């Protein structure tokens, strides 16, 4: 159990590449922190620096108030779960899990007892004598978890521990990881590129991009008050819709969805900001609705959507359509598209809307849709910053 503090931590490789820049984070004892970002954003490097597998170029790393920059991994008393699991293939499951204790010079009886305890917790008891090569992916993952658990370290570091599992198992293991962390109460730093894991697991989420921390906060806060376009586009699935627009006076915004009047709260924030007037409007898919299902007095804006594709999920209906106009352009959004491997360019503004299952929208037919103007995000078209800061910013 420990508090971990990263104080202006920098990682610069000998070739000059800057992997992590001025990383500041205070992890409270027992907290579950998620580092999330697209590949190459420096999240794994940050984790490896905490582990001691990579040197820290500048800044300070404190564990329990003690600077550990120059301590070897073995003296930091933290355990790590690797993406590849990194099980020792020549040892049985029991030996794998007992290895850290053996190295620490713990007597055989205690090792046996602790391994059995951990195995029970992870339902590995009947596999203790098997070799890792005879286990399934999920079992291997659990052995890797077990190896971290047995020595009751100050903190767990997890480097994309679930990304090698198939989708169904990943969801199961996600809840199990969460359960284990809660029951042990061990400080955990968890790296992932999967925003779903970030949203579901963490007490707080750290979104990184290009070695720089973009925003730190609880999953719900990040979802509702993304600091910039990058965070807004990264958090949430399906991701937020972005529509370039112009601010006219008096809280009127013009986008491909037509004119809309922004609520007073947003208008006041916009008045304070120094925006040129050209903005990007962010609307989450669930903030759209079929206009016929909305009572007339609810604040919002309606528009005609040329519905392209309809996917019915049973609980919801997803409608995809293309509005006329220019697609939103920004460095943040291009980074996101690159990470998602999406290099398609539409002749317009693609929009995804999540509608109520009762909606009667049909593919290929125009429909009247509505969106909740009180939930929209307004970003600066130049810098990508959110012009309506959240309560905590």
């Amino acid at each position, binding site marked *: 159990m420990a508090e971990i503090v990263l104080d202006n931590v920098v990682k610069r490789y000998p070739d000059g590449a800057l992997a992590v820049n001025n990383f500041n984070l205070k992890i409270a004892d027992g907290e579950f922190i998620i580092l999330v970002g697209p590949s190459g954003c420096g999240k794994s490097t940050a984790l490896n620096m905490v*582990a001691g597998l990579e040197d820290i170029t500048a800044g300070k790393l404190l564990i329990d108030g003690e600077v550990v920059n120059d301590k070897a991994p073995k003296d930091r008393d933290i355990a790590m779960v690797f993406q590849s699991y990194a099980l020792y293939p020549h040892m049985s499951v029991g030996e794998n899990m007992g290895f850290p204790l053996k190295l620490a010079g713990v007597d055989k009886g205690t090792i046996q007892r602790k391994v059995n305890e951990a195995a029970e917790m992870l339902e590995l008891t009947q596999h203790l004598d098997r070799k890792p090569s005879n286990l399934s992916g999920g079992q291997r993952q659990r052995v890797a978890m077990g190896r971290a658990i047995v020595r009751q370290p100050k903190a767990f570091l997890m480097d994309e521990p679930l990304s090698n599992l198939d989708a169904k198992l990943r969801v199961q293991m996600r809840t199990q990881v969460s359960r284990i962390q809660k029951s042990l109460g061990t400080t955990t730093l968890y790296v992932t590129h999967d925003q779903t894991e970030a949203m579901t697991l963490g007490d707080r989420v750290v979104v990184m991009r290009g070695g720089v921390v973009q925003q730190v906060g609880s999953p719900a806060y990040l979802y509702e008050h993304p600091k910039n376009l990058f965070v807004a586009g990264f958090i949430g699935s399906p991701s937020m819709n972005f529509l370039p627009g112009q601010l006219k006076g008096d809280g009127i915004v013009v986008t491909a969805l037509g004119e809309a009047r922004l609520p007073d709260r947003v208008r006041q924030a916009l008045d304070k900001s120094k925006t040129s007037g050209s903005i990007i409007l962010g609307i989450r898919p669930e903030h759209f609705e079929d206009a016929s299902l909305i009572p007339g007095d609810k604040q919002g804006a309606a528009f005609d959507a040329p519905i392209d594709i309809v996917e019915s999920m049973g609980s919801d209906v997803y409608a995809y359509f293309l509005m006329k106009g220019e697609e939103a352009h920004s460095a943040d959004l291009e980074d996101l598209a690159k990470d998602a491997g999406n290099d398609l360019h539409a002749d317009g503004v693609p929009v995804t809307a999540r509608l109520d299952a009762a909606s009667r929208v049909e593919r290929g037919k125009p429909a009247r849709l509505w969106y909740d103007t009180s939930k929209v995000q307004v970003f600066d078209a130049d810098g990508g910053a959110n012009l309506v800061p959240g309560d905590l910013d």
Partner: protein
Amino acid sequence: MQTETTQRKLMWWGVNILVLLYAFVPVVWIISLSLKDDATLNDGNYLPSSPSGESYAAIFSNPDFLRALANSIGICAIATFVAIVFGTMAAYAIARLDFPGKVTIVAVSLLISMFPQIALVTPLFKIETALGLFDTWPGLIIPYITFALPLAIYTLSAFFREIPWDLEKAAKMDGATPYQAFRQVITPLAMPGVFTTAILVFISCWNDFLFALSLTSTSNARTVPAAMSYFTGATTFEKPTGPIAAAAVVITVPLVIMVLLFQRRIVAGLTSGAVKG
């Protein structure tokens, strides 16, 4: 489909038999020669008509041969052991660490193994006579190690590179010192590679004729391949074909035994299960 598989099987067996014949005809021939007696040695039969152990009796009563056999085993075992110990460490460093001059070291070691040995015989002879190493065990062990090391480093570094780096990181995180990680995690996994390399190195030393012939003068350090060339027949004009064949069979046996022994250890895919897969 049925005919095709039958045809394929026939082809498969045909090719197998061809390869086996190619490999075993000379072996059987030399065994056959070693079992023939003087009278039937040149009768032209592929198999001996009346097998006898005469040649074997002759070489095993020859003190020079017995001494040469001991020399061979001793010199090759020591050279192999030293080459493997240093080769393992060097290969690990080359596979895992970044240090200045790494490329140079690899290039130089490769260069040494490419060197034509015959060109080195005269200088080595001069050096060894000057140092008093001529016709001694170290006089052969040292050049053997020199040529075995590059081979060992090359093969072993390939094996080390196959071992996932994550395993070492995991060992570090589990509290291992670099030596503990090397000793308890990396070495056990590299064992198949070490054994394979040991066999290759041992065979290359065991088969050496050039150095064994030119860097020795008495049975003091002469190994079997060189000693065989000093066998004499019953008369000056008679070739000692039988005893040479018998000696050739005798020195092949340890190799076969070694390969059979270590073969069990060379289990492919020992690292499977370490990382996802």
